[in-house]
């Protein structure tokens, strides 16, 4: 799968063509390591100097993509990437088997589980601001999230979607995307389990 989509070029404020694809290779992981990490570290250093913002440093940045490359071969898992101007701008991993719905009205039904989303650090406004820089592209994470909803529809899961949100992301998934905060998961570092019903995902796609 490889499709042209649009994201926003922050410099011009205009939409720009990008590609979303699911043929993620080891080279993409290496690219995230080599290109993303130094920028992330710079931003983390800048954030850590400000005690009010130090807690904003996302924990997942300590994680090493390369540890997960073995999963590329697993059928239940799917990786998506977005590239623009020859560079990887965001990456996502979803699982169609590992989890099922927890909301009472759809308990036990299959869903697409978003295991991981990361956008390139230069696309994250909250990271670029401390460095005195403008983010490069906007809407990358939203496009990846949209792909997960669309995959859920294609799988016959009617848009049902679930994820464990990090504390700093709960506002995005609950307030902005409209997911239901089902509850803390004691088996997953007490992270908040959020879920989409078919109606909620329809509203997300329609922009209601």
């Amino acid at each position, binding site marked *: 799968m490889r*499709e042209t*989509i*649009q*994201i*926003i070029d922050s410099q011009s404020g205009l*939409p720009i063509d990008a590609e*979303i694809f699911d043929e993620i290779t*080891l080279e993409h992981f*290496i690219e995230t*390591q*080599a290109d993303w990490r130094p920028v992330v570290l710079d931003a983390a250093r800048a954030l850590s100097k400000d005690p009010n913002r130090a807690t*904003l440093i*996302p*924990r*997942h940045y300590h*994680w*090493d993509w*390369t*540890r*997960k*490359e*073995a999963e590329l*071969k*697993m059928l239940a898992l799917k990786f998506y990437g977005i590239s623009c101007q020859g560079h990887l701008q965001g990456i996502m*991993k979803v*699982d169609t088997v590992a989890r099922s719905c927890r909301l009472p009205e759809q308990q036990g039904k299959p869903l697409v*589980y978003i*295991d*991981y*989303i990361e956008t390139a650090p230069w696309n994250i*406004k*909250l990271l670029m601001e401390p460095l005195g820089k403008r*983010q490069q592209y*906007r*809407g*990358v*994470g*939203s*496009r990846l*999230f*949209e*792909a997960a909803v*669309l995959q859920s529809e*294609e799988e016959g899961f009617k848009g049902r979607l679930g*994820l*464990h*949100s*990090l504390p*700093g*992301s709960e*506002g*995005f*998934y609950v307030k*902005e*995307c409209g997911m239901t905060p089902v509850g803390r998961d004691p088996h*997953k*570092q007490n*992270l908040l389990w959020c879920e989409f019903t078919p109606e909620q995902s329809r509203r997300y*796609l329609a*922009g209601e």
Partner: protein
Amino acid sequence: MKFNTDRKWLERRAEQEDRHFISVGGLISTLDPTCETEVASPPSVETTKTAFVRLLQLARRERRLTLEKLAEKADVDLAELLKIETDETFTPGLRTVHQLGLTLDLPAKKLMVLAGLLQVKDPHLQQASVRFAARSEPIGNVSPEEHAALEEYVKFLNER
């Protein structure tokens, strides 16, 4: 997949995204050693692992590089390099193997297979790896026989 083509929709979603980090929790489990069961284990590859270690050792020695010099040239951690050469049960990081491949002029992807980082069913590779491991010694100077074995094995890896 039918992505939304409405510009206003995209603008609105981008505005929402700008106000937050959008990190998702699944992989945070890998930060916590108590959750290691969720991390996929690399495939079992004892034979290719031995060949991987011997190959690195011979290629390094043939270039007359000390471990320290190789770590410096490849920009990898010396302690990890030492661990690779002395502990065959150790699984090196992907970046390390990639860097070593570049520095020693060895095919990086094949090295990843040998190191157990990538799974590929290839009986010929297994046989060639066993043969190579048996014909090479981990210490001492590179003998003419070892040199021949090294050349033959690298040629095999590059051809496949």
